[in-house]
């Protein structure tokens, strides 16, 4: 593992204390066209989007303006986490705007805007997610969305037990 590469491409997270947003920034050693393809071709998406310990299954993935998607993350014990949304705008090599709903919380919907900035052969990706409320945004961060929810609760249990 090369540390210099890791430093240059470090993932940055910004969670504004006064707005229900999460902004993720990361650079890639590939031009925007290729990063765009990895976000819109379901055969490629399935290779990286899901959490490593879960299996990802795509039901539908039509990454065009007005298209929609649905995919699932599957636990070994059969537990499913399903997500769906629509593509509000898919602008090749530049921008993807989509809605995002975790079906475990069907009333919640986030608006996600992905922009790809050309750095001359490299790409800066900025993914901005606008949640329903600051409370929901914090819950998303705490749970890591579909990740480690139980771990978060266990940690909180421990903390609360110590505090008590």
């Amino acid at each position, binding site marked *: 593992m090369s540390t210099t590469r890791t430093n240059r491409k470090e993932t940055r997270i910004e969670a504004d204390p006064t707005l229900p947003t999460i902004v993720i920034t990361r650079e890639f050693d590939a031009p925007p066209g*290729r990063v765009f393809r*990895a976000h819109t071709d379901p055969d490629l998406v399935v290779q*990286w989007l899901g959490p490593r310990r879960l299996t990802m299954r795509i039901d539908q993935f039509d990454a065009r303006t007005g298209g929609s998607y649905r995919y699932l993350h599957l636990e070994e014990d059969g537990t499913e986490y399903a997500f769906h949304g629509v593509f509000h705008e898919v602008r090749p090599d530049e921008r993807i705007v989509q809605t995002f709903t975790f079906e475990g919380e069907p009333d919640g919907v986030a608006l996600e805007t992905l922009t790809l900035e050309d750095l001359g052969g490299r790409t800066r990706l900025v993914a901005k997610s606008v949640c329903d409320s600051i409370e929901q945004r914090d*819950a998303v961060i705490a749970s890591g969305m579909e990740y480690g929810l139980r771990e978060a609760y266990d940690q909180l249990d421990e903390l609360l037990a*110590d505090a008590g």
Partner: protein
Amino acid sequence: MDDDRLSQVFSALSDPTRRDIVARLAVGDATVNELAEPYDVTVQAVSKHLRVLEDAGLVSRSRDAQRRPCHLEADVFDLMTQWIERYRREAEDRFRRLDAVLEQLEEGVPHNRDRAEGAAS
């Protein structure tokens, strides 16, 4: 119960006045009157906010002294920081897999850096 407790923390922090109170308590302990000063609300209203923060385990008040200064339970916020860091690591993990996919796509079209590395070996 545990899920309730977690949502209690988030719900407590969803209010801008309460987040502001928490930010000020992070600087140091303060009494209800001191906390109420900058706001255009009554001491009672601030007390109500403090009760929500107390119930969520974010703030404690000493029982003995008459001033009863409010104290921030910093541990809970260390936990929030940890959660953000873990969220970041999950994203980083995902993007490293994306790096690998991009490298795969790149095959046959060597990058300048790759060429330089190849030449060096």
